[in-house]
């Protein structure tokens, strides 16, 4: 599937994106006492027809990045070039036209559907807002069509969300996102609230829809197994920055950044023979606060291969192999090369050869 993506002009290009939220104090007079650097200088592109995965742990800025692209936030700095046009500073009117082309699927199928609206009206709502299909009869036909595209019986149009299971609701959320025939969909953790057996159904549906309608996805998730399955390329975020970006198989089979390696090593695989034989040393410490991130490389306090310079010099992303970008000053060394199962054992710092 990876080879079917042709390198056209990217549909979306994000350059130097920053989103800082002020931290305020005081009741009558609010003054900013600091800022949360939720996204702090992020660059990536999304090609037409591909799925780019954005992974990381809570607070790494992946959802904020998605919200900036949807222009639910106005970014502090940076460019978001969508189909050749910078959308980072569009005004309200211009945004309306944009939103017909970019849609979103949310994580929680319970809170993202209005409990007082019938499923049919939920799906018809975007068409009403944008004045597509003004004729009620045709709109209703379209709703039925969208429901069956998403694998639901058209009869569900007359039901309320509470009458449906989690998986069915998420299908409604997907149908709503498709209502305006968008070309780009931001999927923000679309399957993480679902049970395992239902998750697989929704993943297959998302893949089918991508092929059928030529969609492009930005797939935000923390479940790395799902990301490996669904994405062509993957960007790993840590504390507001992208630390590694590569095509999916390269990233998962030959991770280079120490954080990516730690993240992959932490995921338990459903096979007791692998798991119980594994010499397992989890990465120490917790994610530092984005209000006061560490100097230099943000990962250096937890990094097993950090050297002195990591604490004051911020590593820029470098292309170590074609298409493989890593923001680490230490990865060109033999440390990672030639290790057959590059996935798991955490190599102690003294084993690094300089």
């Amino acid at each position: 599937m990876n080879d079917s993506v042709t390198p056209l002009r990217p549909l979306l290009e994000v350059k130097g994106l920053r989103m800082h939220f002020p931290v305020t104090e005081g009741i009558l007079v609010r003054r900013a006492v600091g800022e949360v650097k939720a996204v702090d200088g992020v660059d990536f592109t999304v090609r037409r027809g591909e799925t780019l995965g954005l992974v990381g742990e809570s607070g790494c800025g992946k959802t904020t990045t998605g919200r900036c692209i949807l222009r639910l936030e106005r970014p502090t700095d940076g460019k978001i070039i969508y189909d050749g046009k910078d959308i980072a500073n569009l005004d309200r009117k211009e945004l309306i036209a944009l939103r017909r082309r970019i849609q979103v699927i949310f994580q929680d199928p319970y809170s993202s559907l209005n409990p007082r609206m019938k499923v049919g009206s939920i799906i018809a709502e975007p068409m009403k807002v944008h004045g597509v299909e003004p004729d009620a009869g045709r709109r209703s036909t379209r709703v039925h069509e969208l429901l069956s595209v998403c694998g639901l019986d058209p009869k569900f149009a007359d039901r309320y969300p509470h009458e449906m299971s989690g998986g069915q609701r998420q299908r409604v959320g997907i149908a709503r996102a498709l209502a305006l025939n968008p070309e780009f969909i931001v999927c923000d953790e679309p399957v993480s609230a679902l049970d395992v057996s239902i998750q697989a159904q929704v993943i297959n549906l998302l893949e089918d829809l991508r092929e059928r309608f030529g969609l492009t996805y930005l797939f935000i998730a923390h479940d790395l197994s799902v990301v490996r399955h669904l994405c062509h390329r993957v960007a790993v975020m840590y504390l507001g920055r992208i630390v590694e970006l590569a095509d999916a198989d390269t990233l998962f089979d030959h991770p280079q950044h120490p954080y990516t390696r730690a993240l992959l090593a932490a995921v338990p695989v459903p096979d007791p023979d692998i798991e119980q034989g594994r010499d397992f040393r989890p990465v120490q410490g917790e994610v530092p606060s984005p209000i006061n991130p560490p100097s230099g490389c943000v990962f250096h306090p937890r990094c097993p291969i950090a050297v002195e310079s990591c604490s004051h010099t911020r590593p820029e992303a470098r292309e170590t192999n074609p298409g493989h970008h890593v923001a680490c000053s230490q990865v060109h060394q033999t440390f990672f090369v030639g290790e057959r199962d590059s996935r798991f054992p955490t190599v102690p710092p003294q084993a690094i050869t300089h």
Partner: protein
Amino acid sequence: MPPLLQITELHTEFRTGAGVVRAVDGVSFSVEAGETIAIVGESGSGKSVTAMSILRLIPEPPGRITAGQIVFAGRDLMRLDDAAMRQVRGGEIGMVFQEPMTSLNPVLTIGRQITEALEQHRGSDHATACRRAEELLGLVGIADPARRLKQYPHQLSGGMRQRVMIAIALSCDPKLIIADEPTTALDVTIQAQILELMRQLTRRFTVALIVITHNLGVVARYANRVNVMYAGRIVESGLAHAIYHDPRHPYTMALLHSVPRLDRPRQMRLDPVSGQPPDLTRLGAGCAFQPRCRFAVPGCAIAVPPLAPTGTAGHLAACFRSQELANQKVALGTGVVA
């Protein structure tokens, strides 16, 4: 020697507006001293209700344990009065719940919450309890325990709160810890730390552990034995290796096939379990999985298959066709025996 915990034919029901839900419907299993077992299942399978029933924490009404025996260390917990049961809970049986945000009291300091357990169950005086609390926090890997004892839960990260929960669970030298989705709310690197911590501590103090989870990877990392639940029943039970490499119940097989694997290149498509999760108020006469099962035969809709030996030692499956499923001789996707 009898097992540490022996549950026999446990039935727990809830009365709801839509009818009676048999959340746990005849569950039997045992836990040996010092071993780790897992209960796996999806939402509504009855895994958490099983745990709550062992601790007799089912809210009554609407819930009720209608039948069954829970023998723990030689005593039937069903016959204990409330005071005696309170001594077991948090004393001989420790608990770790999913949400470290909600299972700690937000208005009490961490120190108070640990010493409370010690004073209640051990009759320790305050000074002794405080010393022990500090020691426990050190044990679960919290740096600077003396300072942390004076803090409130909101001042701690999610991972640290879960460490505090583990400290409380361990405080009275339990023989058994029940952990209900202990790492589900945590990020993956923190999850790995907590899992490793629990594994080390349960080994060190020979505490038996029941892990309840929906995550098949967590089970693989942890458990000696696994019970798979579906619609209130155990559908398969056995050693972890057998469950993962020679599953004999179609639901277990389907679960294993429907998860994408991190350690394998992507396949073209996932093979999901078709259909929707069962409505527990409207279960038919037969096997609850039968409407979604690709191996179902007409008999499956008539009678519930009993949990029966598969032939491998200690491996049980509740499926009429479990023998045919041996080593997956049945061609997947067709339901036809090859």
